[in-house]
């Protein structure tokens, strides 16, 4: 039985203000070729100066994944010609990366990292539609990247997927990147091989152009199957780089690797070695924001949430942040967590949006939930109010007042309604008395209907029970 062996190479774009080796703005969404200078355009005589903020972010990620921050690491040149590479080489780290080792736990597995190093992004090439022209936008050239390399230790597409989710959580929690794959802020290449009968590693295939976590998982599954088929048929796996075709859900050959590409790495002579002091590490540790694991623990320990709820709330930094904002003036974490993990998530999934785009502010949600707690409205009515808040932007109490949705909690009128219901359903009442207990629900439903959903369900229940007993 051949075992799949999977390794990942992830590039993340850092949220620094400026580029890695010049002080141009690192926002490539601006008008093309406006954030450029002699350095990032590779003009004659321009020299690189490292961005300290990017190095700090590298250290932060290193600490967050329990890696070893190297006191001295080296910048190197990776030489190759391509129109998106202005200097004819990329400044990266080769022999000694900023971070060695480290790991991320994925369910009950541990994914080990080999290294994290700093490098610069290339320019972006755009093929002008309808022509054979290619345009180059140098706004992206020189934007800081961290490359994260795992050991070839993953065994399934599922592990790879969860690993990426976890990694994205960490980089967004630490605030070093948006981690948005759709914007190219997180890119992932996959290396897949199958073990030989003797247990040694088989020929490795690299898959590129993966634009979602789903694509990563699907390409791994596809490759495992493809490689197994080739080998079963007595074929050989040829060293090649493959690309993912989303529409066909398959990988295809991008280029054959005839011999290894020779990047002629050598130490970057325009830069000194990168020195990291203990103070820099201490500072990064001091400024480290709460990590996903710590947040889960906090929610379980201090807010008494279930592990399930806690991991749902902490699944993204935005949701946790929203939750924490709500908790500022709210006392019932369980109710809040329930609402976020059911109603709010439902809307997020439906609209395919982030929590801050749902359309209800934390203050409004807590106001709504407080109305439930005070018994002013029922949970059912609250769900309707939520939709109105989203639609109109109005505050929940305003909506409740305007639409007359106030819960009826007046014992006399409720008692009157229950009597009416029992009066109108004499047959059922008879059957109930003869032991058909399940008819209780029917009475309750009728009561709610009569109050147009506004009747306080708890009170109705009590009164109904009382009247049934006396009937």
């Amino acid at each position: 039985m051949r075992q799949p062996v999977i390794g990942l190479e992830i590039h993340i774009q850092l949220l620094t203000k400026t580029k890695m080796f010049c002080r141009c703005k690192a926002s490539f969404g601006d008008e093309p070729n406006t954030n450029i200078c002699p350095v990032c355009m590779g003009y004659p005589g321009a020299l690189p100066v490292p961005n300290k903020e990017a190095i700090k972010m590298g250290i932060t990620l290193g600490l967050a994944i329990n890696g070893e921050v190297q006191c001295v690491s080296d910048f190197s040149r990776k030489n190759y010609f391509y129109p998106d590479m202005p200097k004819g080489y990329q400044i990266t780290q080769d022999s000694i990366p900023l971070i060695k080792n480290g790991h991320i736990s994925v369910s009950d597995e541990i994914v080990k990292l080999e290294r994290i190093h700093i490098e610069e992004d290339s320019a972006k090439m755009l093929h002008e539609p309808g022509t054979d022209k290619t345009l180059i936008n140098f706004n992206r050239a020189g934007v800081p990247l961290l490359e994260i390399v795992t050991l070839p230790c993953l065994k399934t597409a599922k592990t790879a997927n969860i690993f990426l989710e976890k990694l994205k959580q960490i980089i967004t929690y630490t605030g070093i990147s948006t981690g948005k794959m759709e914007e190219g802020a997180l890119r992932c290449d996959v290396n897949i091989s199958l073990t030989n009968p003797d247990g040694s590693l088989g020929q490795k295939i690299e898959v590129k152009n993966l634009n979602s976590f789903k694509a990563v998982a699907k390409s791994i599954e596809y490759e495992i199957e493809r490689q197994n088929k080739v080998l079963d048929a007595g074929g050989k796996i040829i060293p090649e780089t493959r690309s993912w075709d989303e529409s066909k859900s398959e990988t295809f050959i991008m280029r054959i690797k005839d011999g290894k590409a020779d990047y002629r790495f050598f130490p970057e002579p325009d830069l000194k070695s990168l020195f990291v002091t203990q103070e820099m590490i201490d500072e990064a540790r001091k400024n480290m924001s709460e990590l996903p694991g710590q947040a889960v623990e906090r929610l379980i320990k201090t807010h008494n949430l279930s592990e399930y709820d806690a991991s749902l709330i902490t699944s993204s930094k935005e949701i946790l942040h929203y939750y924490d904002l709500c908790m500022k003036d709210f006392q019932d974490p369980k109710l809040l967590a329930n609402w976020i993990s059911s109603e709010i998530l439902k809307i997020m999934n439906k609209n395919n949006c982030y929590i801050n785009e749902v359309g209800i502010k934390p203050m409004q949600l807590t106001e709504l939930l407080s109305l439930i707690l005070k018994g002013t409205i029922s949970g059912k009515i609250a769900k309707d109010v939520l939709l109105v808040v989203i639609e109109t932007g109005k505050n929940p109490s305003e909506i409740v007042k305007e639409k007359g949705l106030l819960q009826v909690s007046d014992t006399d009128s409720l008692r009157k309604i229950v009597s009416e219901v029992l009066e109108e359903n004499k047959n059922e009442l008879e059957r109930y008395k003869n032991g058909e207990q399940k008819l209780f629900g029917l009475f309750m439903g009728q009561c709610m209907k009569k109050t147009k959903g506004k009747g306080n369900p708890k009170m109705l229940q009590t009164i109904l029970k009382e009247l049934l007993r006396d009937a």
Partner: protein
Amino acid sequence: MTHQTKNEIHNSLIQGEQTPVEIIEEYLKRIEAQESEMHTFIEVTGESCLNEAKQVPKPITKEIVEDTPFVGIPVGIKDNINVKGFKTTAASKILENHISVYDATVVRKIKNAGGLIIGKTNMDEFAMGSSTETSCFYPTKNPINTKYTPGGSSGGSAASVRAGHCTVSLGSDTGGSVRQPASFCGVVGIRPTYGLVSRYGMLSFCSSLDQIGTIANDVDDAFSLLEVISGYDPKDSTSVNIEYQDLKEPEEISTFGICNEIEKLYIDPFVHDMYKKVIAILLKNFKKENHWLDNLDKAMAAYHIIADSEASSNLARYDGVRYGLQISGESSQEAYIKTRTQGFGAEVKRRILLGTYILSEEIEGSYYKQALCAKEKITEKLDQIFSSCQFMVIPTSLKLPFKFGERNDPLDMYYSDYLTIPSAIAGMPSVTIPVGCNENGFSAGIQIMGPKFSEKVLHSVAKLIEGELK
């Protein structure tokens, strides 16, 4: 025939004998008369220089000269250093029409010190050569005798100072490119400690060895210009955070060293005589020590391996995509090949090919690593020598200037730097001063080498020798 020094010009300006415009006009007149034969410049920036001269405050006072030490002085800039608004070609066809979009740090400093840029001096293409013969435009003639080369690669910078086309000039020295042409043209040339002068805005040939240096008619002018351009630059990560207030402060010196190998090398007899003459002067003042430099041959091999490796990468940016020569092709690959094949000259191509091979995985960078080891050994040896003596004296070049076309074998040409490489590879400073004058009018260049940041010592010694020779 030497021309006015900075101090002489300033005296004349302060006393009102001449105006800055008259000074520049005189220089431009001389350039006009000689340039068609001499070719010291790639571009003369006469008009802008005259305009700048008109802006010089009047009258010029001692205070103004103190604040802006190069006020009114015409300066030549080697054409591998960016001057905003003018062409920077590095004497290469690939940059023939490239106009600089920014000032190099050294140029900004010279402008701030009142210096007037009079032209971009000719050079070997991308500073690869020792005679200016690899310039894609034309070779520069040696002003002493136009049948001879001015040396290189900063041949235009040395010749322009000697010919009176500028008072001082900037060159760049990777293995000897300031000192060898300065010695050929009978002027003073300094290679400063690596990191003392910002390289920002100078086209990199070999980043780990390149340094901008100064060329002048006398020792004080060369050091004054060095004072202006030196200092930490946050734009150059390899620049050193050290600030000299006054390089010309006298230093206490007791001991100097000479190099035993010199007696075993074939040196031009005139150069040897002048070398002995300088030693005699020094012996009147200091104690002498004998040292073996060791590994002179290895230093040269290591130098070429390091320089060509880095050059192959540093010159990769000249691809025709963003600026410079651009020849189109069916694919980007083809466009690269065509542009670079037509844009680079033979010597540059030779070095790129060698450097690419040296760094290739095929030989696992083993030459490069060995060369770095050799570099370290040579540095250690010099450190050890300089722990017992304060400077060394050594000829700048084994030979006197050669005629055009006389050295056709590249290896022959590479020997031009034989005695300038050790200090370059160790990142140490060295100054060459002209000594004597033979029947052809040529002087011998004698180098004074010191440990890192010993510029003050070098100045004191150079000044002493210069004084004794007068």
